[in-house]
């Protein structure tokens, strides 16, 4: 092998955490100027491996070579000195600082400790021109779009003259247009000689942008393939360990009696004077999955908040199984048979610093099953939680006593799904239930939702992903600017047609 072949090699890396072997003898070789994808499910060890490369963790075994030389990376400064830079999944930006300040933080040009921002500004402007990264240097990070925040992170790496760029799930937070832009930026960077490591579980993106792809599964190295010689199916089978069914298997719906009846619901907006939800009426029956589709920010969130009792509505009625719950508190709605998989699992789904078992009984700890005279029956809680973990395959380091914060996103979501479905609800409200999850977890959650429907329950799904909308639902309602503008049967409508309604170009009288 010649020196120029591999710019970074991670050889036989093993990293253990209490109760879990996050990386088990993993080898990754990055060629100069390539885009190399690192593929794996949530919890497969991708982020851990990259954290090892970036110096955040020290591996128990294995070594890292740069240009054929063994190097030691003890902290991010070492990584930086070796020209390795990383865009973290959750951006590491100081919100009340300007874009420029964030870029230079840590490597500030200075004279005797006094900042010299002028030269920094010139360099950043030059870089942003060279790579087509449009940013407003003086804007505060809290005021700019997610896409621009990501460009700021990329400029941070370029400003440090990094040659090896790590992107940790960069598309999870972006809109489709921003994703296209990012793909182009990554290609530009590779063309300029930068070597890119791209962590993802989205197969289509990997096929579109990466040259090669290394697959991990449950901490183990599965293989490295050239993307031009492989298919989405093959990659997903490598990632999950079995063939993945991209189509949801389900029998035709058998709608029964009405479970949820929403009439003329109006919800005021917190941002402006207009109503966020305007006079929305529909019904959900037993044995059907009704999907509320639409582009983000068209009132879905506000509607769901009103429906679940998180916020008040200004007009209309909500009837659940014949009972008016328009003004009922959240616990009453839960008692009456409403389950809610919330949009924001960190904010409304889990208490992150509670253990898994505490989270599992969040809505039920007061039931006789779990308490006596105000004292929690810890044995009963543990038993119940262990059963859910087993049944719904929630993976964590320490089982029931794992702190929710330390779990991967997919497993946090599985825990919520387990809790909400096991309540045996009459109505399951699932808001973006698969956001940010990998194909294996998506498949699993879709199956669970269909199972709830087949058990004769009503399901209200809110989704921004058209694939999910088309695959999972029995009836589609399109929401645009707070109103329902169309109702469709997924078997007869096309994605293009839906898109026209979602964009407000067409509407039907209902």
């Amino acid at each position: 092998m010649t020196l120029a072949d591999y710019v970074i090699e991670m050889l036989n890396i093993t990293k253990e955490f209490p109760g879990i072997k996050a990386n088990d003898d993993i080898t990754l070789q990055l060629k100069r100027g390539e885009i190399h994808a690192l593929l794996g499910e949530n919890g497969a060890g991708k982020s851990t491996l990259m954290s090892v490369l970036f110096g955040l963790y020290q591996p128990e075994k294995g070594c890292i070579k740069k240009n054929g030389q063994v190097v030691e990376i003890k902290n991010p400064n070492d990584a930086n000195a070796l020209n390795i830079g990383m865009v973290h999944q959750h951006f590491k930006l100081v919100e009340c600082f300007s874009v420029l300040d964030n870029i230079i933080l840590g490597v500030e040009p200075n004279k005797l400790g006094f900042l010299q921002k002028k030269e920094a500004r010139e360099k950043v402007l030059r870089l942003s021109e060279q790579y087509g990264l449009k940013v407003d240097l003086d804007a505060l990070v809290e005021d700019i779009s997610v896409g621009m925040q990501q460009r700021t992170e990329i400029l941070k790496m370029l400003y440090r003259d990094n040659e090896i760029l790590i992107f940790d799930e960069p598309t999870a937070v972006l809109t489709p247009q921003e994703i296209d832009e990012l793909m182009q930026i990554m290609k530009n960077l590779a063309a300029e000689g930068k070597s890119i490591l791209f962590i993802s579980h989205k197969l289509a993106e990997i096929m579109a942008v990466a040259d090669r792809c290394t697959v991990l599964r449950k901490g183990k190295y599965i293989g490295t393939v050239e993307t031009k010689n492989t298919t989405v199916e093959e990659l997903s089978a490598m990632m999950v360990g079995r063939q993945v069914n991209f189509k949801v298997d389900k029998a035709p719906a058998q709608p029964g009696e009405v479970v949820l009846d929403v009439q003329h619901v109006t919800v005021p907006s917190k941002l402006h004077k207009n109503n966020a939800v305007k006079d929305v009426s529909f019904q959900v029956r037993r044995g059907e999955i009704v999907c509320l589709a639409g582009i983000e920010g068209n009132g879905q969130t506000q509607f769901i908040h009103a429906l679940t009792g998180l916020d008040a509505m200004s007009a209309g009625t909500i009837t659940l199984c014949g009972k008016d719950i328009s003004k009922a508190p959240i616990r009453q709605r839960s008692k009456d048979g409403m389950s809610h998989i919330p949009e924001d699992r960190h904010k409304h789904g889990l208490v992150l610093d509670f253990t898994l078992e505490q989270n599992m009984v969040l809505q039920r700890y007061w039931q006789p099953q779990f308490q006596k005279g105000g004292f929690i029956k810890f044995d009963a809680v543990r038993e119940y939680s262990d059963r859910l973990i087993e049944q719904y395959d929630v993976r964590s380091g320490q089982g029931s006593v794992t702190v929710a914060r330390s779990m991967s996103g997919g497993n946090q979501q599985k825990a919520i799904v387990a809790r909400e479905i096991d309540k045996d609800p009459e109505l399951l409200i699932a808001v973006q239930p698969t956001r940010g999850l990998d194909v294996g977890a998506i498949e699993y959650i879709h199956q669970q939702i269909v199972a709830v429907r087949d058990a004769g329950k009503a399901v209200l799904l809110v989704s921004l992903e058209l694939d999910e909308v088309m695959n999972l639902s029995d009836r589609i309602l399109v929401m645009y600017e707070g109103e329902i503008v169309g109702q469709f049967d997924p078997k007869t409508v096309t994605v293009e047609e839906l898109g026209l309604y979602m964009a407000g170009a067409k509407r039907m009288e209902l």
Partner: protein
Amino acid sequence: MTLLIKYTLIYGIVLMLVALGACFSEHSGIINIAMEGIMVIGGVFGLLVLVMLPAGTSSFMKVLISICTAAAAGVVYSALLAFASINLKADQTIGGTALNLLATALALVLVKRYNNTMSGGTGTQSPKLSFVNSDFIFNIGPITVNVFLFVGLALLVIAIVVLYRTRFGMRLMACGEHPQAADSVGINVYRMRWCGVLISGFLGGIGGLAYIVPAVQVWNFESGVTGMGFLAIAVMIFGQWKPGRIFLAAMFFAVFKALANIYDSTFLTALNLTKEVYNMMPFIASMIILAFTSKNSRAPKAEGVPYDKGQR
């Protein structure tokens, strides 16, 4: 009127110094509720050194040595908070409260011990310390000012420059806003937080001395520093953690505080209110103002949360 200006300047500078101290600590991410205690410690050590200096010491040296002692005592005392809240990751509010309790007690022990020794071991239990403050005060025209006015204004300018014009200040604020981000670019969060807390000890210590010395010649340590440390924290919040606004906020609160000292020599006597009402005024004002303004406050985002490298 000149009296009002005199006292406003005294208290304004004190509040500003201490609020600036708290501001540095909070910008690094550590809530420093112990400013009250730090003031007491700075005050008692500064005063003890002042009264113990040999008689022949020049005015300049007296002022310099006592201020330096107060600052050093504040730094040492604040190190306790830094160690507990940064290295041991203890709850910052509880740690600060403990230090407040300890400070007054420690000051009483020291002062009583000193008084007992000076009186030849007669067993006196006086918590009062008498001193001469003439070295600290002088007149400019009709207005009496003290050295702390100049020390304070100089420190204000330095604070603004350090916070907004230097690498140190930028990194300090990054640690209080988003320590994970600071860590990811190679900034040692623990070290920056230590610096922030020690600076608060430095300024708080001077602030303690500045509160006690200029106005009176004898101080009863049973009352600590009568809540000035807490008032300073209110000033910091009202000042939105920005040095310039803190200065204005400090002067605003100082007017209320000064009224308590001078109301009996002005037209306010006609109102027939008791002294207690005036003494309460700065605190009531701070409650009312904070109730209305704290909603929009821009506190450093990560303050109060111990930094743990491993947390996701």
